[in-house]
């Protein structure tokens, strides 16, 4: 059985389910849906399970880590991902090292949640994709849902993982619709082939999956059949699934809203080329500039469905 819902509804339902299922779950902050999305009733329904820290990101995130180490299951919504930098010492330098430094005795199963990426007209200081940097932090798991079923399943998986998790969410996914199974698909670390086509493979995550689907539909009209592979997990990246999909296509695009250097896409491309060196591949990343406020400028920087489709057509001409 499945039901069709919006992404924001699926997210609220999944969090509600986890709060109901486990008394140790606590929200350290509330900006997981509101004010970014329509009211979903989550914060009102679980008011006694939500702590509201001041604008003190370092203390907020450290709090989550400490609570996780000592038996709770904290979910820490940081809100706009650019604000993570204030908490960087905790997220990048404490949480991921705890299991390792303790010789495996102590774990910090905390879930950090951010609204990442360009939400349009928020400017350079509210539209970061900092998770690309955190790929280089061993010990942290990074999840990036793209569909209602993803957010449902990955929230379930995050709460069952004994490592610190970063859940990379995107404001512009809120109104995506899709089917959600009755039993969450909690597979972490597997990619999902959302669309099958024999000419070109588009590998993407988060909002870029939705744009890749739009691009694939427009490629259809040009007689180009595109597959779309949704990564879902960025660390550890589902490399086997990607290599397998790549080998079944004559050309591949790696699409990423992060900037090229240090992006998941460039890492994947390098990994794939080691295992499948004859692959014709292209990166479609945000260009190397901050997010501009004006939409005309932003569309020059962040990959659009149009740019994805154009690059796909171009790479096919070459191969």
């Amino acid at each position: 059985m499945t039901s069709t819902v919006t992404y924001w509804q699926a997210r609220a339902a999944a969090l509600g389910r986890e709060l109901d299922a486990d008394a140790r779950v606590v929200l350290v902050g509330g900006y997981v849906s509101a004010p970014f999305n329509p009211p979903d009733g989550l914060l009102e329904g679980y008011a006694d399970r939500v702590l509201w820290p001041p604008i003190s990101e370092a203390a907020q995130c450290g709090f989550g880590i400490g609570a996780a180490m000592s038996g709770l299951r904290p979910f820490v919504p940081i809100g706009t991902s650019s604000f993570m930098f204030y908490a960087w010492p905790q997220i990048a330098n404490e949480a991921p090292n705890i299991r390792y430094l303790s010789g495996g005795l102590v774990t910090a199963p905390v879930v950090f949640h951010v609204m990442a990426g360009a939400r349009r007209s928020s400017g350079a200081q509210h539209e970061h994709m900092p998770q690309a940097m955190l790929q280089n932090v061993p010990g942290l798991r990074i999840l990036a849902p793209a569909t209602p079923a993803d957010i449902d399943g990955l929230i379930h998986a995050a709460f069952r993982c004994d490592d610190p998790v970063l859940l990379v969410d995107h404001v512009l996914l809120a109104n995506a619709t899709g089917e959600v199974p009755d039993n969450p698909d909690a597979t972490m670390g597997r990619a999902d082939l959302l669309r099958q086509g024999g000419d070109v493979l588009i590998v993407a995550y988060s909002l870029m999956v939705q744009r890749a689907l739009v691009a694939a539909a427009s490629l259809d009209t040009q007689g180009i059949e595109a597959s779309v592979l949704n990564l879902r997990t960025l660390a550890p990246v589902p490399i086997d699934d990607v290599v397998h999909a790549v080998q079944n296509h004559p050309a591949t695009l790696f699409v990423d809203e992060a900037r090229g250097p240090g992006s998941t896409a460039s890492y994947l491309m390098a990994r794939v080329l080691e295992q499948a060196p004859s692959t014709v591949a292209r990166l479609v990343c945000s260009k190397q500039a901050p997010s501009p406020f004006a939409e005309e400028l932003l569309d020059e920087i962040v990959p659009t469905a149009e740019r994805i489709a154009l690059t796909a057509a171009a790479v096919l001409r070459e191969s």
Partner: protein
Amino acid sequence: MHLMGRRAVLATGIVGGSLPIALGNSLALPDEAVSISFFGDGAVQTGIFHETLNLASLWRARVLFVCENNGWAEFTSRAEHTTVETVAAHAQTYGMPADTIDGGDVLAVRAAASRLLERVRCGNPALLECQITRLRPHYEGDLRRAADPDPNDPLERLAAVLTDAGEDAATLAALRRTATVAAERALADALNDPPARSDDAAHLVFRRQP
């Protein structure tokens, strides 16, 4: 969020982000010149606020910190963010002169700012806490929190003061008209401006391309 003037105005979208920048700025300024840093009461709970005030005092920097305290940090009231009553109390901890005033009274703001700026010019950083009323929601378009029901509009209050002082209604109306016309003209100019040039986006990253 990032409106910047061509002469010495910087805006940041990160709560607390401009505080240390104002401090650094003051160290580079010629004698007598000062830096003024505006921020909301939400910034007071960030670590950077405390790092900056400590440094400013330690280095006797010529900075006036102006806190526009409307009792709200983003969507949450001040009482839910701290047990500390006034922002000025923090400044005093770091050995700075500080005042808490009615920020809706523009004449009081001018008087207090002038008083503190004298201290600042002598190398004593200071903090002015202006207690004000939030007249609009956290951001335009946020429908979840209505505007405060009891607007303490500083313009209306000044108009009342001027009226009491004998200013006639026609003069006040003319002032309002002048300002409205200027704003409307600016708006019209902006709307007539062509959209931002898309090739600008990547070119503005560096002043000098390596």
